[in-house]
């Protein structure tokens, strides 16, 4: 059983923000990640502030201009099944559909998915690692088969979210609200790498809530997708995930976004892979060049060299499926 905590269920965003001014409080969305963190002692909130009755965090709307507004508390299953999301923002629908099991997708929310904590076994285990304020990243010289091949440094954990790479690729923006007011942050600037701050994964300030995610309308010629490699077929975190969003003009790629999950401490936007695609036709040559460019600068650890080849493979497979239509 979880350690005891107080519980509050506010009925509005304003009340939720008031309750969260208390630093010992944590927001509870689906709880599928937070409860594991509490079980493992990684989170020790004295009070959970339930988001279940906050109307501002709910709803999934397609706006007249074709953009999406997705309340942070929207369950992933709803997102994965939504016809307009599947049709026009396939990367997001596919990413949401690939999170955990059906049960977890019925409960887990989009906001919680973006803000979940790392799965590194040293971080979740009984180790005073760098991310918990200690001096050492134990994975660097320890068991690191599931760890980063890109952007590591002071901590080599990988960002676990499937939806984060998709939202970065789709140029989404997140709306935050906190004690000092509201602000908008591009999804690509939400995440914090270890060189900037090894103790946190996002720019959210204490007491801030993620309110909604805004996904711009898909322009004409847009295609997107998400693919991931897992250690088992049923359900699992991504060993490697890839989100790609393209805008095609005729056969030529006008704009490309290639964002990787599971390989770096934050969703990893690969500009070399994007450059290998932009201005070229989607053919065998550009696909292979982009797959190769996606692992440019990769620096595998003792046990995760396989991720380099796996990343190439996943990027190439996803691009090939997008090329096929």
């Amino acid at each position: 059983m979880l350690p005891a905590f107080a519980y509050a269920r506010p009925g509005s965003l304003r009340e939720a923000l008031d309750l969260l001014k208390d630093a010992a409080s944590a927001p509870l969305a689906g709880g599928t990640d937070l409860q594991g963190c509490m079980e493992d002692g990684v989170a020790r909130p004295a009070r959970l502030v339930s988001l279940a009755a906050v109307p501002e965090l709910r709803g999934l709307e397609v706006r007249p201009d074709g953009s999406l507004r997705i309340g942070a508390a929207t369950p992933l299953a709803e997102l994965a099944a939504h016809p307009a999301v599947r049709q026009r923002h396939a990367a997001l629908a596919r990413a949401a559909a690939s999170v955990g099991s059906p049960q977890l997708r019925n409960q887990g929310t989009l906001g919680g998915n973006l803000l979940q904590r790392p799965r590194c076994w040293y971080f979740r285990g009984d180790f005073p690692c760098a991310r918990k304020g200690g001096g050492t990243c134990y994975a660097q010289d320890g068991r690191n088969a599931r760890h980063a091949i890109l952007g590591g440094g002071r901590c080599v954990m990988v960002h676990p979210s499937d939806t984060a790479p998709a939202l970065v690729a789709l140029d989404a923006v997140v709306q935050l609200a906190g004690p000092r007011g509201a602000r908008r942050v591009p999804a690509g600037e939400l995440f914090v790498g270890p060189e900037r701050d090894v103790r946190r994964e996002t720019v959210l300030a204490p007491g801030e809530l993620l309110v909604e995610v805004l996904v711009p309308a898909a322009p004409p010629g847009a295609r997107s997708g998400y693919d991931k490699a897992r250690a088992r077929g049923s359900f699992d975190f991504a060993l490697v995930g890839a989100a790609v969003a393209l805008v095609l003009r005729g056969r030529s790629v006008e704009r490309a976004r290639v964002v990787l999950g599971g390989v770096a401490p934050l969703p990893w936007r690969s500009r070399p892979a994007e450059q290998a695609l932009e201005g070229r036709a989607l053919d065998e040559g550009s696909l292979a060049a982009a797959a190769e460019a996606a692992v440019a600068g990769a620096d595998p650890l003792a046990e995760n060299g396989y991720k380099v080849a796996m990343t190439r493979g996943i990027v190439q497979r996803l691009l090939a499926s997008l090329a096929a239509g």
Partner: protein
Amino acid sequence: MAHQDDGSGFSRRTFIGSIGVGAAGLLAPLGAGAAAQAAREVAAGATVAVTLQINGQAHRLEVEPRWSLLHVLREVLGLTGTKPGCERGECGACTVLIDGATRNACLTLAVEVEGREIRTIEGVARPDQPSAVAQAFVDEDAFQCGYCTPGQVMAAEGLLARSPHPSPEEIRAGMSGNLCRCGAYPHILKAVERASASRRGGRP
């Protein structure tokens, strides 16, 4: 930790609301249309009165915020058909339906499902009146030790409610949150196909 209700509607544990009102209406009602009302809370270690709708019956009881629905079903209400396995969302043994959608009862706080429609294996597999899914599991020998079966049946109920005639691929995906340590998977998949076919044939 079993919870005893002394019949007064309050437990012996202290019950604290930050605003001094009775147990009813302490928390904001769930649902998008919930009218805004002052935020109130339950203190750590205290219990709060909730009404849970389980298999069509209202149960009024006192829960601590940290109690999972799995704990409440088994230890407070004696509904032991829902099984504990990993208690971390990894095995599906504890699968129940909340408003028709499958959920892991181990990761669901009881206080969070107040007012929602909860269905457990006791509601679908009554010995005298098994659902088409429960009957299909019997007909296909879809278990060995049977420990995972209540969760498998509930997962299949949730899948077929959403998608009455799933393809084999959809069945595999829909049942992927439920592990079977005996490896009865081929028969489980057949049972789901049979249940789907029997519904097609017009049976309940």
